């Protein structure tokens, strides 16, 4: 069975290449067509591959396309792996990614650099799909790095604006810090397992005795966690993500929902064989996740920029996923990743629609009452908000409830994790409904009429003047009055259609998890690896060498049940007991979600004077949180400034100017000085030449005499 998995990442790359190389001469329509066609084709291939995999009785498929390189005993192949985990990721990335592409066609239509934008967007899809579909860590790392690159390009899309360029750099450099950890984890894997292929590594790990190598696996797990923290914006490397809002809003949706930030969660879940054997690393994952979830939610409460609220909400939700992965509930993490992709993409796109509709304003204090101007945006965003707040029966409820339950009940869990998760859920519900109430209810607080005429380009923050040089003319060609901003207005249908689709997914997306179906679906990937599986992997490796084209691993579905054998009687009793607890916790989390809603309603609809009063009464705390706990400032003082100072004084003025330039210039000076002395010899005086000849001859004679004596 050949699924042509390679085509899924390569199709967006083709689109990126066409738009990147020739897009400058294309019309906007053609650029959009190319970008959409290749993304849609990739989505189509993904659906096709997914349905064929699910239709067969195979659990995973590996397609190999030759050797990438060989170094010593290490052989790395171009290989793609499709199993239930990468299937979910692949569909989320291509599906949500495609919707964001559609949305971007309308959203970016007034911006310069149209072709550049879609080239980067497609490139992003390519790298993310490589990351997700790779069958070895090294290829994953290629995607991992590529995603960082593409995010840099997209966040810094309005590169003329200083803050955007800086945000891009910040994202890239922060990610590099994490990549460093991931890279060392890779080296450790290669050193100790001699392979980077998932199944080889996991088979080797499962064959190792439980006690042995605990330190090694813990080290690998912690280093991977560092990498995941960078990519998935966890404490302490989350700082880049809120700043990533400088990019165009659809980019935020793509980075925050479908692609980049999920890479870390995906990597942790993919490496569950490592983490399951390293309890300390697992605990670290859970703690970091819980802290991040709580911490980011508190910041989210105070922010007034609509996109920043969503950014911190993303960080917080990613914290949930990490917490789930940290209590070994990997499938719950992936489940939340999926539902989060739906409603967070929707939230960002709806926020983009709001920003678009009122001419580039992002401050929620200047919005309000937009419900009557843009009803569809309002309703879809409301759906997403209900979903993220965890109110049944929308998607977020199922995944979040699963995480909370697992945090409480899992053998790796603890009630503290549950408590943090529950408090965070309350805050999530609160700040999300605060956003809704501030944006859509009450009276419009922004400027009406001609005050905003001239916002020719609806941009995120007044980068109307920002445009590619080559597109400057084009941008100016857009008639100013065609889109001059009078009253807020609803966005075009090209933007609303993705919103509606995502809203439908946000409603229904959680239903596939009812009754633990999603967990069972992912079980073949997440199951603790057994020796028996390892043996099967080995045979497949042998077959690889014989025919390197395609390997399909047949795994009888019945063998799933071999893993756990419930002991009849007391297990049932336990189950019933657990069921009761689970229902109680579920009830609590629903109550919490409604409490958040109620509080937000009270503060931002009923008693609008209260928030200011609360803020003043908690003055110190409020300013601290409003300034994001001064984390950026602390990093600046503790890390960035010392590095800059060290680089300036030691590396720049010491090593570069002193050592390197000094060596080069010094050798030049030395040559010149020596030449100054030597040029005196060419005096033109025959007698001095003759004297030298005579001296030379004398020397030769003396030398011969001396050798003759000896």
């Amino acid at each position, binding site marked *: 069975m050949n699924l042509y998995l390679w085509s899924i990442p390569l199709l967006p790359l083709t689109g990126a290449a066409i738009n990147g190389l020739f897009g400058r001469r294309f019309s906007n329509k053609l650029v959009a067509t190319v970008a959409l066609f290749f993304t849609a084709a990739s989505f189509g291939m993904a659906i096709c591959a997914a349905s064929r995999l699910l239709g067969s009785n195979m659990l995973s498929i590996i397609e190999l396309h030759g050797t990438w390189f060989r170094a010593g005993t290490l052989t790395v192949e171009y290989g793609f792996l499709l199993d239930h985990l990468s299937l979910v990721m692949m569909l989320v990335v291509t599906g949500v990614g495609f919707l964001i592409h559609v949305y971007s066609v309308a959203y970016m239509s007034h911006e310069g650099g149209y072709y550049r934008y879609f080239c980067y967007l497609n490139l992003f899809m390519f790298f993310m799909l490589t990351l997700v579909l790779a069958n070895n860590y090294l290829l994953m790392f290629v995607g991992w790095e590529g995603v960082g690159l593409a995010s840099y390009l997209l966040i810094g899309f309005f590169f003329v604006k200083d803050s955007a360029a800086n945000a891009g750099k910040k994202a890239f450099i922060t990610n590099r810090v994490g990549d460093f950890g991931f890279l060392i984890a890779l080296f450790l894997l290669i050193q100790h397992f001699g392979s980077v292929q998932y199944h080889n590594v996991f088979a080797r790990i499962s064959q190792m005795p439980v006690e042995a190598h605990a330190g090694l696996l813990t080290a690998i797990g912690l280093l991977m966690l560092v990498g995941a923290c960078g990519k998935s914006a966890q404490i302490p490397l989350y700082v880049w993500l809120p700043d990533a809002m400088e990019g165009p809003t659809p980019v935020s949706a793509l980075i925050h929902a479908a692609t980049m930030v999920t890479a870390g969660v995906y990597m942790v879940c993919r490496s569950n064989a490592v983490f399951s054997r390293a309890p300390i690393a697992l605990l670290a994952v859970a703690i970091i996740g819980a802290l991040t979830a709580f911490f980011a939610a508190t910041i989210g409460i105070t922010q007034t920029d609509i996109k920043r609220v969503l950014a911190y909400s993303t960080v917080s939700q990613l914290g949930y996923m990490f917490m789930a992965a940290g209590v070994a509930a990997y499938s719950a993490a992936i489940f939340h990743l999926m539902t989060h992709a739906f409603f967070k993409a929707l939230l960002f796109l709806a926020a983009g629609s709001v920003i678009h509709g009122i001419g580039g304003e992002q401050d929620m204090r200047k919005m309000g009452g937009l419900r009557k101007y843009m009803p569809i945006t309002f309703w879809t965003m409301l759906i997403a908000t209900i979903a993220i707040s965890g109110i049944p029966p929308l998607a977020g409820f199922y995944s979040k409830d699963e995480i909370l339950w697992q945090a409480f009940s899992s053998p790796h869990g603890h009630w503290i994790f549950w408590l943090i998760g529950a408090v965070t859920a309350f805050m999530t519900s609160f700040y999300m409904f605060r956003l809704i109430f501030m944006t859509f209810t009450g009276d419009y607080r922004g400027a009406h009429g001609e005050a905003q005429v001239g916002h020719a380009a609806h941009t995120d923050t007044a980068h109307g003047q920002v445009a590619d040089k080559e597109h400057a003319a084009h941008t100016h060609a857009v008639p100013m009055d065609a889109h001059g901003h009078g009253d807020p207005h609803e966005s075009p249908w090209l933007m609303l259609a993705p919103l509606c689709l995502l809203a439908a997914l946000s409603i229904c997306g959680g239903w596939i998890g009812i009754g633990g179906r999603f967990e069972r679906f992912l079980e073949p990937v997440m199951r603790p690896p057994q020796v028996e599986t390892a043996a099967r992997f080995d045979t497949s490796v042998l077959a690889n060498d014989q025919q390197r084209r395609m390997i399909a691993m047949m795994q009888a579905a019945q063998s799933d049940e071999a893993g756990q054998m419930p002991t009849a009687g007391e297990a049932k009793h336990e189950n019933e007991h657990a069921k009761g607890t689970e229902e109680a916790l579920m009830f609590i989390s629903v109550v919490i979600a409604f409490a958040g809603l109620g509080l937000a309603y009270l503060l931002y609809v009923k008693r609008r004077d209260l928030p200011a009063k609360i803020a003043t009464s908690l003055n110190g705390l409020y300013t601290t949180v409003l300034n994001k706990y001064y984390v950026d400032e602390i990093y600046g003082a503790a890390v960035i400034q010392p590095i800059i100072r060290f680089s300036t004084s030691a590396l720049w003025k010491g090593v570069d100017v002193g050592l390197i330039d000094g060596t080069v210039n010094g050798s030049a000076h030395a040559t010149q000085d020596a030449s100054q002395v030597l*040029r005196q010899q*060419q*005096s*033109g*005086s*025959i*007698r001095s030449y*003759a*004297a030298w000849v*005579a001296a030379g001859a004398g020397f030769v004679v003396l030398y011969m005499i001396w050798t003759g004596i000896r």
Partner: protein
Amino acid sequence: MIPLNYYLVLSAILFACGVVGFLIKRNIITIFMSIELMLNAVNLSFVAFATARGVLSGHIFVFFVMVVAAAEAAVGLAIIISVFRTRETLNVDRVNLLKL
């Protein structure tokens, strides 16, 4: 019979005189004569060795050297005359156009 060493010492002394003359004199004619002196010092060594060893090749060499020296004298004197004509001096320190 006069021992070989005497000839060789005389030859060395003559050669040294030639070198010293070459180095310390400024007049081109004198320098030219010093060169001839060195050549003839070498000729003397050749002849002395040839006689001592009873072979003819040394003598023949001397004839060759004499021929070359004669030719050289002709060319050299011609150069000297032309130098004198153009620069009106025979002082080598003034004839330093090849200087950097």
